[in-house]
């Protein structure tokens, strides 16, 4: 094998964009649910106005940044926010990809030491619960079994919520 130097790291553009789109979907769904979903409203009520959280993929990965504005959790985009009140860092793009494609739940990623938290632990627990609630709406039960410790009971009201989130919510965040 020849001697090689200055080997630049390769990029996985497809995975990068898949994670970015996944984060966007999660952000819009969460924003939408914060208008009317009782559990989301209750969890978000613990945060003060302006509370900002960022879920980042370390190094060159995308982010999911959201802020509490009034009663609503507003999706702010995919750019890293270094001064957020809570930063949850996913160790690498591969892990984030597994999360958004329902191959791994937040607790699995935590168990593999592939997630770290900068900020208050109760806030991070609240954020994880919010993600679980939204994932319960976004994915069907057979996929949720892979990523949630407890699949939600889909009452008629929750079925309506799901329809709302997957249509109006995903398109407009309303």
């Amino acid at each position, binding site marked *: 094998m020849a001697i090689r130097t200055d080997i630049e790291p390769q990029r996985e553009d497809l995975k990068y964009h898949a994670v970015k789109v996944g984060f966007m979907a999660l952000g819009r769904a969460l924003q939408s649910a914060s208008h009317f979903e009782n559990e989301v409203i209750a969890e978000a009520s613990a945060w003060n106005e302006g509370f900002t959280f960022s879920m980042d993929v370390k190094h060159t990965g995308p982010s999911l940044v959201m802020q509490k504005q009034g009663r609503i959790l507003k999706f702010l985009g995919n750019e890293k926010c270094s001064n957020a009140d809570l930063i949850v860092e996913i160790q690498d793009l591969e892990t984030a990809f597994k999360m958004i494609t329902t191959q791994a739940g*937040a*607790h*699995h990623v*935590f*168990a*593999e*030491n592939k997630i*770290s*938290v*900068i*900020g*208050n*632990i*109760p806030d*991070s*627990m*609240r954020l*994880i*619960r919010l993600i679980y609630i939204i994932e319960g709406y976004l994915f069907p039960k057979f996929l949720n079994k892979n990523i*949630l*410790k*407890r699949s939600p009971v889909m009452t008629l009201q929750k079925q309506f919520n799901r329809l709302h989130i997957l249509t109006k919510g995903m398109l407009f965040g309303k």
Partner: protein
Amino acid sequence: MTIPRYYEFQNPVKINAGEDALRTLPAELKRLQAARPAVITDKGVSNAGLLDHVLNGFKNSDITIGLVFDETPSDSSVTVVNRIADLFIENNCDSIIAVGGGSAIDTAKAVNIVVSENEKDLRKFVGADRLSARPKPLIVVPTTAGTGSEVTLVAVISDTEKGVKLPFTSRLLLPSVAVLDPKMTISLPPRLTATTGMDALTHAVEAYTCLQKNPMSDAFAWSAISLISNNLEKAVSSGQDTSARFAMANASLMAGVAFSNSMVGAVHAIGHACGAVAHVHHGNAMAILLPYVMKFNLDTIGHLYAELLLPLAGAEIYANTKPTLRARKFIEEVLLLNYRLSKLCAMPVKLNQAGVKRADFKKIAEMAVNDGAMLPNPKDLSESDVLSILNEAY
């Protein structure tokens, strides 16, 4: 045994264990290129004469103890940590020796953060993996057998201004050396021996059964349970039994290695909240809650509890119990152990005996679901689940 698709394990702490292990302190400090340690301990340790044992370990050496601080309170705070850090710098110390239980050890770890990061405000480092500076050499001499802090990467310090507990976790908090000397735990009173021992048992059980479990931490947890089963009651009933004391010190350390690499679960999450709201002693909260949380988790991880019946109850009971009943038998054995310990030293076995009031339940449940230890618990717990467990344990 199922091996996870990925896991991490680290235990770089050198362990010096056995008779006269304290005599190795000067050599260890030399190896770590330190010459002027600060000793951080508490009044209980110095009044019991245990500090003298440590200082005697330096006889005929060329190490000067730069500072002895024996005013660490049982619930250490940011103020105490900052005060010790100032004294550390004023006295040109270059290393730390922590002598005591969880509070003294956690305080020493937090002092190490302040002096190594060269930063006045400890609060800046709250959370996971926030440290970057190379820490000062830290040697830990535990005087209780339960916390396992001598081999863990965690420190918890109270912020008395805000009334909250601040957790710090980082691989950089791991001590350089843990020194287990049998004479250091001999004076531990029976009830404290029992509750700290049950804390160690809980570390081992949760490490073996929670989501971050791995083959390395399993091995440590398994051995810890076996040692606890054979020695805890002896250490409680005959405090001067150095062999039982030493076995418990080893068990506590092994359980510490296990949970430092696989985390704890819902017993700790609810126990932390019981401590914060109703001031229940941590080890006692663990002893009370462990069987009831296991009952809750039974349908999810019963097969793992069934395995643990062997190290806890021994080969005969294990073999004579039907495989389908072993998990329940394990829980029953833990309950029986609690009752036997209660008989020996009046250890509370129900929350009402430990001073918890039903009026505290809602606050405890709210806090518990926001505790980081809930995440690795294999079964999801809502506030109402926690309330059911509290009611059962009351």
